[in-house]
């Protein structure tokens, strides 16, 4: 008959403390790491909140806060974009105030040249 040998069951105090100790160290390291991460999220959220508050404050301090109430813009419409009145979306306003990007830039330049020298 072949005999089969195996380890005895149970552990000693020393083995228990070593096993538990390693797990405890790992738990502490993971905890510290998680804490660092959570703090970083807080700092980042804090920063975003402050930045947003700053932008709102700056905006509230502005004398003119809406472009359609800006006297200079109103004047521009009266003198040039819709001569004699304040009328948005005229042909001229559409072509001059909308910009284009990338490959469409040469065509835009061409168009702007077309309006060159024109004034009310």
């Amino acid at each position, binding site marked *: *008959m072949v005999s089969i*040998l*195996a*380890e005895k069951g149970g552990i000693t105090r020393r083995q228990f403390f070593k*096993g538990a100790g390693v*797990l405890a160290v790992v738990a502490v390291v*993971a905890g510290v790491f998680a804490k660092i991460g959570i703090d970083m999220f807080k700092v980042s959220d804090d920063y975003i909140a402050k930045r947003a508050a700053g932008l709102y404050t700056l905006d509230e301090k502005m004398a003119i806060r809406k472009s359609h109430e800006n006297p200079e813009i109103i004047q521009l419409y009266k003198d040039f974009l819709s001569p004699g009145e304040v009328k948005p979306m005229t042909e001229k306003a559409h072509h001059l105030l909308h910009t284009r990007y990338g490959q469409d830039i040469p065509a835009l330049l061409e168009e702007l040249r077309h309006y060159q020298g024109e004034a009310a």
Partner: protein
Amino acid sequence: MSDVKGKVLKHGEQTRTMHWLHLICFLILGLTGIGFYWNIGWINDLFGGPANASLVHRWTAVVFTAGPAIYILLNFERFSKFIDTISTFTRDDIQWLKTMGGYIPFLKGKVPPQDKYNAGQKILGWVVILGCLLFILTGFPMWLWRHAVSPAFLDFCYTVHFWDAMIMMLAVLGHFFLAAIHPQSRVEFSSMMLDGYVDAGVTAHHNAKWFANLSKLE
């Protein structure tokens, strides 16, 4: 070898399952990691392109982390004994390292009796534990915190993760060579990869200190 007859149960079923699971995860993680580090097209394509390879890497990492964690909780005694063995270094272990267990032809000297694991395996045990912890501690922030942490910290994680991978792959390659290829040590192959048993004569010779404390099952 000695003339002890019989066999020794070295690794239980859960241990072997966990070892297989971790091995497969490691291979997938290593392969996908190499794929996106060097941007190797065919490796990425194995996993359905770079974006999918990245997802495979992350979710395999979850198994890579949860597997051993569950194993340790279910087998706390086994784990404690393992930690006890690999954290015990005596004069015999130092002497084993000086002779490199007799594996290197020109290093002469008597190889002293060893525990369940020889001094080299003990060191590998620590390398694997620390290496895996580093993977976890750098990998999950690279996944979950990437938009909250500073670029410098993220870069630090990537660098540590990468070098950890290089060192661990070399360590695992060495481990594979001794466990599966080297004629003197591959006699233990089946104890981890198959049925859990090693020949008693081999154990009496390679792990004399551990062997002395075994008891008969039948």
